[in-house]
């Protein structure tokens, strides 16, 4: 694989805005969407990334079974009140849509950095913006990116299993809003009735014990770009559990299907990394990871069990702190409950002084595409730039 420097399209800002990537520039004025370079892969390298994604998904499923059968939710600092609902939805398999594995790949070894299973973003960039970039710049080349087709196909599969309208909600910044808009778009293209509202507009009708929109319409299927850990700490968190459609794949009157389902708390929690290492020690796709300290590792990262965009991640070299990301927000601090995972360092793809992380997407549990983020250091955060890719 190789990183190429190129001249951006003269109208690149307009081009990406038109397809939904309105958050293309960082607060300091530098580009977040960075098409001054692209990564080129061989088909064989893409095959390897795809196969690695399939294998990690396989062992994550095994890990889910192990976590529940061995009673490990407590080790993951997952609230006890969520346990029975996680267990029940793991068995009943209610609708679930997507996830993103963050991988380190230096051209030789592929290692799992983490699994963003509940609220992954960078989707508009990966599914849409880089696809249009490829059409403009290298229309004869291929790209590991069938995200759009697979999303629409998955929503079509879900038609018998959801209540309509399917609601879409978020509580974040522009990126989250556009991610939700895109997912709503894919559901709409699959023929589903959809509607959107802000998370704070999800109301609770205490007399009828149901969630409603501000007009009083009942909410029965809702896609949320809002972490379960935050939901459970919110004022309506217990209501969400009390009305959760946990036992059935299909809609049940008076119950609510939340996508992603609550069992995703097992995979979005970074304790999963240590559990995978415990279950599959020395697996070629895993890094050493532990919950109770760095063990014999000299160089490692310490990650809060719950966190987003690299927040709270601390790098250690020779057991000493050697840089870190911004501190986590108060909601993630509360959700992590003081728990950390200690993970060995991976060999990253580096070029022009930048380290790249490969976000490998899964739709319906199958590999579906890739997006690349570049950072000046080893920790990917919310200012890490998105760089498009192709393969030949």
């Amino acid at each position, binding site marked *: 694989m190789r990183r190429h420097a190129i001249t951006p399209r003269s109208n690149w800002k307009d081009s990406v805005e038109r397809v939904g990537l309105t958050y293309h520039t960082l607060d300091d004025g530098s580009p977040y969407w960075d098409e001054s370079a692209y990564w080129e892969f061989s088909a064989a390298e893409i095959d390897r990334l795809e196969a690695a994604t399939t294998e990690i998904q396989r062992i994550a499923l095994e890990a889910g079974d192990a976590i529940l059968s061995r009673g490990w939710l407590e080790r993951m600092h997952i609230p006890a009140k969520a346990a029975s609902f996680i267990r029940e939805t793991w068995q009943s398999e209610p609708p679930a849509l997507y996830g993103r594995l963050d991988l380190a790949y230096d051209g030789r070894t592929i290692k799992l950095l983490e699994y963003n299973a509940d609220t992954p973003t960078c989707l508009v960039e990966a599914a849409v913006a880089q696809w249009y970039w490829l059409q403009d710049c290298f229309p004869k080349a291929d790209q590991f990116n069938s995200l759009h087709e697979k999303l629409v196909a998955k929503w079509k599969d879900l038609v018998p299993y959801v209540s309509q309208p399917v609601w879409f909600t978020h509580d974040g910044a522009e990126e989250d809003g556009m991610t939700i808009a895109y997912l709503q778009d894919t559901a709409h293209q699959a023929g589903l009735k959809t509607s959107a509202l802000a998370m704070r507009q999800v109301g609770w009708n205490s007399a009828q014990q149901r969630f409603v929109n501000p007009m009083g319409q009942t909410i029965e299927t809702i896609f949320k770009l809002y972490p379960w850990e935050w939901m459970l700490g*919110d004022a309506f968190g217990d209501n969400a559990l009390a009305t959760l459609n946990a036992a059935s794949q299909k809609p049940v009157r008076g119950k609510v299907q939340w996508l992603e389902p609550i069992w995703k708390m097992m995979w979005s929690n970074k304790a999963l990394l240590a559990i995978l290492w415990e279950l599959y020690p020395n697996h070629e796709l895993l890094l050493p990871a532990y919950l109770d300290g760095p063990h014999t590792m000299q160089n490692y990262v310490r990650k809060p069990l719950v966190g987003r965009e690299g927040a709270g991640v601390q790098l250690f070299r020779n057991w000493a702190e050697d840089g870190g990301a911004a501190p986590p927000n108060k909601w993630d601090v509360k959700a992590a409950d003081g728990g950390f995972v200690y993970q060995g360092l991976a060999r990253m793809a580096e070029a022009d002084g930048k380290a790249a992380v490969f976000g490998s997407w899964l739709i319906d549990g199958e590999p579906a595409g890739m997006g690349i983020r570049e950072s000046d250091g080893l920790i990917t955060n919310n200012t890490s730039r998105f760089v498009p890719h192709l393969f030949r």
Partner: protein
Amino acid sequence: MRKSREVPLTLLAAAAMASIGCHNGPRHCVDAQNHLMPDSYCEEHHGGGYYYVYGGSSGGHIGDSVVGASSSSFGGFGHGGGGEGGE
């Protein structure tokens, strides 16, 4: 080919963002007994039993009962955009 054949966009470019509607009616921050409270309670004390209700009226004084409002309460989810839920 492992790229999508087409990526048509309908809602994303324009309508989707517009469809994330805003509730423009009057709203009141109330406690669990439906007494009017300062908005700051709803904004700063999530999980503390303070919610927004929409519509209705009150005497306008802190502690007044709010009558005629929606029977649903709002603001029990969300941090007012204070943190990105995506990663």
